[in-house]
């Protein structure tokens, strides 16, 4: 069962997994795992802003005949032409739009900082990295880690 508190716990675990891989020079694996940290933090924020109850299974409709929280997100994300549930930029835009309409809106300056860090990770990460054998430079892993670390430590901004 997927719930947002479980996603939140998993984001914390993947953060430390990614750090362990990075310190062990397993840079591609580290970036693969770090991308999911950001994806899960954005999802948690969206579901919290949508006031999805913590114990609710995210694949089950919230109301009889309604959409599941994930289906809601997929439908909203199609606004941006990126209905993939793994697209970090789409999740961020979805979160910003949701906060604009349902409130509280993100502070635009904080939103700019968040967007910068999400885009840095997005520029290096795709969920299909698991099929790749790549060489990642030290500069790239440092850049990704810096952004993931900022988002992880400032995650409360996403939903407060």
């Amino acid at each position: 069962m997927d719930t947002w508190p479980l996603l939140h716990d998993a984001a914390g675990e993947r953060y430390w997994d990614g750090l362990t891989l990075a310190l062990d020079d397993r840079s591609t694996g580290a970036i693969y795992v770090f991308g999911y940290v950001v994806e899960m933090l954005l999802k948690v924020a969206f579901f919290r802003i949508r006031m999805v109850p913590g114990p609710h299974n995210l694949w089950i409709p919230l109301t009889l005949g309604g959409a599941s929280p994930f289906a809601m997100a997929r439908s909203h994300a199609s606004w941006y032409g990126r209905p993939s549930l793994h697209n970090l930029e789409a999740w961020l835009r979805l979160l910003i739009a949701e906060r604009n309409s349902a409130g509280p809106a993100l502070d635009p300056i904080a939103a700019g900082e968040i967007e910068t860090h999400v885009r840095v990770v997005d520029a290096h990460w795709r969920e299909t990295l698991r099929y790749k054998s790549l060489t990642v430079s030290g500069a790239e892993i440092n850049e990704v880690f810096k952004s993931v670390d900022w988002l992880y430590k400032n995650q409360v901004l996403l939903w407060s």
Partner: protein
Amino acid sequence: MPVRRIKPERPQGHPELVKAISDELQITTEPPLPGSPIIIEETIGPGPFMHVTVIWERWEGIPAEERGHVIMDGYSDYYDQSTVGRISVALGLTPDEAKKLDIEF
């Protein structure tokens, strides 16, 4: 004993950059002059909100948060509060940063 009341104050940083952005908002000619900020306004989602990205070499060495303040101040100098209130993201990037992040300009 007199009480000293200290209020938090945000330092007025980079007034010349604020003015340059405000000035740029008045210019409608294309292409932009060399060295001037490239301002991209993009509508986000179904509402009236917009995402402002300012791509500019002069951001070099300025932290992201300060860039955001400069953008908001530049818009506040030129537009009324209702327009400024439509900004949901204020993002400042150097041209190199924008290229790395696949932002077209």
